[in-house]
């Protein structure tokens, strides 16, 4: 497919992601605006970093959820970090689920935390699928100086 078609497709997909509130327009578009010739894959790099970092945080959250007694302060702290990253890439739906989770932490509601974490993971995964299509590359690979690398965790 030619460049123009590709460009239109990308623009269309981006609008759709924004309309469905997967992504916050201002934040995500701002990130894309930061791309230039010296760094044309900036957003993709950031998103890849996000998914790598979030799997690290998810492991910690999982462990903390299964510890007895449950350490709500720690859970809140981990989720706060993850929420921050989600916000930085403009992932609205994910961020909103994080807020829910934090409220359950505040309330000391273990059952609520479990459920909320499922929702966080669900939204996180849904966004990943969307972004993989958008970038046309699986998000466990990344670009560094134009070279494609795979990340093995």
């Amino acid at each position, binding site marked *: 497919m030619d460049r123009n078609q590709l460009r239109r497709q990308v623009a269309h997909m981006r609008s759709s992601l924004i309309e469905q509130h997967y992504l916050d327009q*201002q*934040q995500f578009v*701002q*990130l894309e*605006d*930061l791309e*230039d010739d010296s*760094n044309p894959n*900036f957003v993709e*790099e*950031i998103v890849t*970093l*996000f998914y790598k*970092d979030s799997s690290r945080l998810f492991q910690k959250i999982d462990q903390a959820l299964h510890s007895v007694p449950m350490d709500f302060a720690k859970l809140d702290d981990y989720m*706060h*970090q993850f*929420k*921050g*990253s989600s*916000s*930085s*890439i*403009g992932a609205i739906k994910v961020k909103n689920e994080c807020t829910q989770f934090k409220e359950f932490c505040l309330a000391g509601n273990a059952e609520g935390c479990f459920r909320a974490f499922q929702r966080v993971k669900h939204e996180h995964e849904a966004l990943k699928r969307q972004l993989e299509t958008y970038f046309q590359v699986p998000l466990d690979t990344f670009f560094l100086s134009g070279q494609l690398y795979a990340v093995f965790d």
Partner: protein
Amino acid sequence: MATAGEVLRRNVPESFELSEKELHVLAVDDSIIDRKVIEKLLKISCCKVTAVESGTRALQYLGLDGEKKSSVGFDGMKVNLIITDYSMPGMTGYELLKKIKESSAFREVPVVIMSSENILTRIDRCLEEGAEEFIVKPVKLSDVNRLKNFMMGGERKEKGVKKVQKRPLQVDYNNSSSAPSPLPQLSPSFACNLASLHSSPSSSPSSPLPRCASKRPRLHSMD
């Protein structure tokens, strides 16, 4: 790691430093994503950036960590602005701010605090401790442009410098959820500032917020 340029700069008098185009910003954030983003925002605005992951690292970089300090006159690590996240493990941005303001070498360097939470007590504390500004995350290009303009134009205008304060529209008193309500007893210029923030819809990234001419008044006493 000193480049030839840095070595040469050591011998250059202070006034020459000021006319240099490239400002050096020290960015501190424990989140790798936020570090990358702030770094990019700053680089796009033609700032030299050093990004570190913690307050401790920042103090090490500045030579304030109690290790043998660099000799007087060494300005290879001259920093024009320090921008730091508030919530970080170990040393918070607030604690870092205090340490910087306590040091004779760096107390004049403007420090900006970033936070994902706009809690009024937190903002108050930071501003009172001498933070230049408090920015609610996510940081935008317009925030960075404003900071850069401030550094280029304002820094050497002496005390009585125009302080630019970014005020949140909603206030959170000690995390309790309260509906946004007008703040009491605002000075007229400040009230105008807030009013114009309310009236303009989310503007494009390049349009800057209106500037406060006067230092933000103390609005109320906090417990």
